[in-house]
């Protein structure tokens, strides 16, 4: 592929040590993700999907191996450096939405911009845009508890995208949703990807994985297969 690399890992390892037990969550993962890709990570429960996503999202640091983000080696970056990269480049979507209960929908979405120091007027504009795109503008002054699961997840996506990140990481984004709302969320992610944002998504659902360009199958902390999503690439290949 001739596309510019966004993420590159070599022999990425993660070990958890608790009291007496040592768990190897990742045992040498080599992964390359280009800008603009939509990658799905699949695998059985406990195989290390979330661990991998958290490391890719700079929420956690690896215990071994190498990790490059936008061509820069950040394997040993400090917490502050990683926070800075997160703030400028990344958006997260979680299975359990993770909205702040004490903030309204609008305030939740505005949060990343606040940490970026975006002006009030600009924030107002971008938050409104994001809410309109997600179809939740009419609920801007509600608190998360007052929203349905689907609406909460759309608010979460709005929050993840409001700062126009180059990479969106989603950990089972449809896990807590019924199929109708799940499909809605997948459509939104695809839309974002088509607009140029790289998306890395962990999922259990093969149908969700269908939306991705590429599927990475993880087992016991190792990549077992990487298949190109044929249907997606049909146009390109043929």
């Amino acid at each position, binding site marked *: 592929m001739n596309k510019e690399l966004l993420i590159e890992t070599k022999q990425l390892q993660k070990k958890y040590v608790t009291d007496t037990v040592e768990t190897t969550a990742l045992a040498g993962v080599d992964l390359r993700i280009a800008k603009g890709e939509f990658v799905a990570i699949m695998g059985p429960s406990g195989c290390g999907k979330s661990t991998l996503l958290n490391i890719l999202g700079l*929420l956690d640091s690896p215990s071994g191996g190498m990790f490059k983000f936008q061509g820069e080696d950040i394997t040993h970056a400090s917490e502050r450096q990683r926070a800075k990269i997160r703030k400028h480049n990344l958006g997260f979507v979680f299975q*359990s939405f993770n909205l702040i209960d004490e903030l309204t929908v609008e305030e939740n979405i505005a949060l990343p911009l606040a*940490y970026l120091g975006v002006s009030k007027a600009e924030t107002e504009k971008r938050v409104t845009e994001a809410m309109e795109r997600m179809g939740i503008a009419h609920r801007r002054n509600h608190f998360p508890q007052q929203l349905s699961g689907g609406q909460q997840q759309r608010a979460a996506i709005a929050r993840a995208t409001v700062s126009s990140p180059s990479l969106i990481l989603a950990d089972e984004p449809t896990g807590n949703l019924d199929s109708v709302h799940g499909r809605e969320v997948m459509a939104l992610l695809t839309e974002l990807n088509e607009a140029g944002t790289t998306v890395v998504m962990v999922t259990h659902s093969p149908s969700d994985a269908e939306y991705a360009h590429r599927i990475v199958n993880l087992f016991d902390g190792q990549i077992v297969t990487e298949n190109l999503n044929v249907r997606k690439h049909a146009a390109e290949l043929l």
Partner: protein
Amino acid sequence: MLQNYFKVALRNLYRNKVYSAINIAGLALGVASCILIFLYVQDELSYDSQFSDADRIVRVAGEIEHDGQTNKFALSAPTLAPFLLKDYPELEHVTQLLPANKQTIWYKDRSFNEDKLLFADSAFFEVFDYKFLAGNPATALDQPRTIVVSEQMAQKYFGSPDKALGEVLKFSRDSYRVTGVFTDEGNSHIQANAFLARSTFDTQQQDVLTDNNHWFMLSRYTYVLLRDEAQIAPFQEKLKTFAATHITPWLKENDLQASVKFVLQPLRSIHFNTEYTEDISTPGNISYIYIFSVVAVFLLLIASINYMNLATARSAKRAREVGLRKVVGAYRSQIIGQFIGESLLITLLAVILALALAQILVPTFNSLTDKQFNSNFFLQKEVIVVLLAIILFIGAVAGSYPAIFLSRFKPVDVLKADKAPRGGNAALRRSLVVIQFTISLILIIGTLVVFSQMRFLKNRDLGFNKEQVLIIDIPTGDSTLVNQLPSIKQELLRNPNIEHVSNSLNIPAGDLSTILVYAEKDGGTLQNAMNAMFVDYDFVDVMGIDLKEGRNFSKEFKTDLKGGLIVNEAAVKKMQWKNPIGKRIQMADWDAKVIGVVKDFHVKSLHSKVEPLILALTPESSGYLLVRMKPQDMPATIAFVQEKWQAFDTKHPMEYFFMDEYFDKQYRAEEKMLTVFGYFAGLTIFIACLGLFGLASFTAQQRTKEIGIRKVLGSSTTSIVLLLSRDFAVLVMVAILIAIPIAWYGMDKWLQDFAYRTNLSWWIFAVAGLAAMSIALLTVSFQAIKAAMLDPIKAIRTQ
């Protein structure tokens, strides 16, 4: 961003009402007490600071050493002033104050009894720059028979300070022309209703003065204004040689076996001087300042601990927010900032509430402490500074622990759907609870000890019967009235409910006379300064003092007049007399023999031991009239006394009081402090329990599932309440074990101040411990019972 923090903080407060109420109420109570304590401390420390030259003014106090014993007086000799002025050019002014007796003052048709009257010389207002509302301080006291009155006095006699100048006030002996009106701004140890020109006194007493012109006559307060503050220490040094040059030759010449020396007291330290007796006004007690300051810090500490404990206990609830903020790129420092800001906000709210509370409490506090704090105290610059300091201190110190703790959460740990972190460091939280209860317990024990000591003092046998004695303060300087005393006594005794009547110069808890005596000892004589009471034939009977040996004064023995004395047991002991009756004592122009020995009785408060005392017979004594009444029909008897007395004395407003109240007034300061202390002790335990209540509710919540399972398995409600309460009971127990030795040590020290004191009995500690334990368990069990009563099925479902 700030707006965002602010909203989150406020919404959190609003959504967790119990938690917020506990925090804010606890802090507010603590801060309100701090404000009041600060006002008190500031007020006490402000004494005499209003005088512009306060730093250059010192008082010269006298120490008399005799027989290895040193008696320290706030007074010095009249003759000191001219010597000082002559010998020391570094002194700008020397001025002396001489307290006058209580006087009746007449103006037109008005008359009042006035105390706090001081004779002052013309240099006085050069040293102390009182503000004058009328008149010229520089010349006000230059002429004899002039008087400078206080604003209140001017108001009382003339209706207004501007009408005072030139008016004439009549005293029983002289008339005084008003030459100035001063205002009493700020606190001073010099409490005066009026200053009288000393030249009047000096001319009146010319003969006496020259006669008593010696160094032992400590009768005046001597103040010195130095040219420079830096000269105080060198001047003190020079005073040491003063005695050698001026006093020692005089001692030799008069063959006196005692010595006297003079020391300096910086003006601003005088209010807290308890070492030098006979001060102008009752001194303050510096230890109350320390105790109060410590209590203030304790209260803040306890309230801050509530904040820290509840914030971390509740941290699970905030963890997700922290994780999320980090996910979207918040730095740890930003999170710390947010939580510190939040605690600053809570403290600010608490301070606002505290101001309102303090405002409401000011009148009560005033009556408890005998102060006059204004309700707009918070406009004071110092108070604002203190409040800001409190906000910063609590906000930053109490806030930083939860802030650091919360900001440490990692998003990967806290954002997992399935598990939430446990709230905070339980061991630290337990230690903090122990600290809270230790402090509360120390204060409770302290209060109980003070209380039992007060009870001890009041119930102790004083060696005389202080009950049912009415005392009339006989106006001074009215010789006709004094001549009528025998008839008055006779008249009063006609009432069957009046048992005895006595007129004396001295009364218990009042001033004693100190005289130089030469007593027979081992064939020679011993020179000694002794306390004396000048009394009549009936004093011993009125007082109900027991005779141990010999007899009372009697009219049948003509030789008793200037020839007979009664001494107390302490005097016999001091003289080491085996057979005291008949021993010779010479004093002034008396040459007397001991005719009786009385059992020791307390003429002073129980702070001090019974000292050697002489009862000297002067049947014409005209200080006080003591009336011993029978307990029945007291109001009628009192009315009778009043009527009879006023029939004889038509000129003066009658003043009377009761001996028991007068004597117990000596413990008034302690009583007041006991009340204040009691309130604070109650407050600390209350605030500590507020925190405990919050913690218990948190624990119960956390253990809901466990409780449910236990119930399903057959646990009774009682056993679950016990289970939940046990942990807290252990903490209180630990606090009791720590508090007891500390309180024991501290209160034992406090009791050393009293010559007669109660024992630190075990029941005080038992009661305090039991009380703290019960209050704590009551607080906890409320939550525990609530949790134990929950439907187990619901409990298990609750996550």
